[in-house]
């Protein structure tokens, strides 16, 4: 579904060039769930923007559904790292924005979409907030609105940039379950950026680890745990722990390739009851 061949991205900054990405070769199959992890600033968001057709790569080629990417496509949805809500639109009409823009091409009527929007808002716990304006919402609430917006059109491909970063543990769990359900029902192809290794493992068919400056692909880890997965209460606790450990090690590794020594300082985030 998504294919990157030797993709690189160099930014021209005021203070000289930054190589954000280098030699990225990645093939994401249709219906696959790939998570991207890597240190902050290693180029994850940039990679998503390349796939979305928001940025032309400075080298290499990007293909989606067999076609070279020359601009955004209507079957690809992008959830940005920041909520990016239109300040003059209510919550509901922010969620409806993709439908409005795509009018005429939608397969259902507008009313059906409106019902779907309400349903999504309820799912993320925002019932009763439909008519509020974005500035009346908390940070996490805004992120949830943005999530609903990216789900409204049941896209073929979803690119999600840290979609759950501002959410509490409970909401996060619920929403990742919902996301898995969507993926399985509609066989959506998903590329998902996260800083939580658990989340990466819980959700992914494959985890891609990027190294920073310049962003290169360190390793691709397959996750073979059967779905639906629900961390902390399934039978694969040890497998998950093993993979998590390995990912940690990969992230902590120096770029040269020697592994970080386990037992060393480890991320807070990673130990869960």
């Amino acid at each position, binding site marked *: 579904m998504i294919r990157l061949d030797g993709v690189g991205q160099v930014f021209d900054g005021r203070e000289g060039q930054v190589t954000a990405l280098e030699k990225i070769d990645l093939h994401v199959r249709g219906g696959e769930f790939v998570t991207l992890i890597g240190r902050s600033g290693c180029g994850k968001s940039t990679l998503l923007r390349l796939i979305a057709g*928001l940025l032309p790569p400075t080298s290499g080629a990007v293909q989606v559904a067999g076609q070279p990417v020359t601009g*955004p496509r209507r079957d*690809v949805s992008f959830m940005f790292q920041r909520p990016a809500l*239109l300040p*003059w639109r209510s919550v509901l009409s922010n969620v409806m924005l993709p439908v*409005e*823009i795509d009018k005429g091409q939608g397969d259902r009527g507008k009313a059906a979409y409106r019902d779907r929007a309400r349903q999504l808002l309820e799912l993320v716990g925002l019932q009763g907030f439909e008519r509020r*304006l974005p500035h009346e919402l908390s940070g996490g609430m805004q992120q949830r609105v943005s999530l609903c917006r990216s789900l409204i059109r049941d896209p073929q491909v979803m690119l999600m940039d840290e979609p759950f970063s501002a959410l509490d543990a409970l909401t996060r769990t619920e929403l990742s379950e919902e996301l898995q359900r969507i993926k399985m029902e509609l066989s959506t192809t998903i590329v998902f950026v996260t800083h939580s290794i658990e989340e990466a493992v819980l959700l992914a068919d494959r985890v891609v680890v990027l190294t920073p400056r310049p962003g290169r692909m360190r390793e691709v880890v397959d996750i073979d745990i059967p779905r639906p997965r629900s961390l902390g209460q399934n039978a694969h606790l040890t497998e998950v722990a093993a993979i998590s450990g390995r990912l940690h090690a990969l992230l902590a590794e120096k770029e040269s390739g020697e592994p970080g020594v386990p037992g060393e300082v480890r991320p807070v985030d990673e130990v869960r009851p």
Partner: protein
Amino acid sequence: MTTRRRMPKRTWLTDSPVAAVVLPIIGLAAAIGLWWGATVAFSIQPYLLPSPWDVVVKFFEQPGYLLQETGTSLLETIEGFLLAIVIGVPIALVIVRSVILERLAYPLLLMVNSIPKVAIAPLLVIWMGFGQWPKVVMVLLMCFFPIVISTAQGMKSTPTELVELMRSLNASRAQEFFKLRLRYAMPQIFTGFKVAISLAVIGSVISEFVGATKGLGYVIQQSGASADTTLAFAAITLLSVMSIVLFYALVLLEHWLLPWAQEKR
């Protein structure tokens, strides 16, 4: 250790809708007071600057006539202003859409804008006759530039993140403009409107200096014929009032159309 009182102070004066009307009126009264004070203090002669009282008396000598002339000017002003919006906003769209067109078009716009309008008023009459048209066109010429430039600037300053959002939704250029940029630019567009409306009023006056038989500009021009400075100032005062009313009409409209863009201080 310093602790300053800095939470938003909210009082009757800042919050009440009555105050929102009363305060400007007080301001206006103070301004008129100043004017009066000046005429008295410096004993300025009425042929230079009549006192507000003289002006009021003059107005009530023939209120119907003056109001009718005001109506004429008002109509021209509004027609020209609307025309300026209808022409200016699409020009701004084009300018924002293409750097190349922008660079080609700006010098032309600047040229048209920088021509002293008083100097070309007779030309307009020669080309368009004595009817409404040269007046409306003059108003248009006077006020289209602030509208173009603030619309363009406002649309250009739309945050990248929102533009990228629209693009990621595969929005057409038209949608990007109408659903995002134009909406986002609205507060700045209104700034342009507010500057433009005063210019529009002045445009109508200038146009009435040449080849007109009605309107406040004509009255001012005419008052020269009878050395009636007070009448001229009565007309000027009516013009000011017209300007102020139109300005506040825009403020109200903005308040009503853009509740999300209320000011933060």
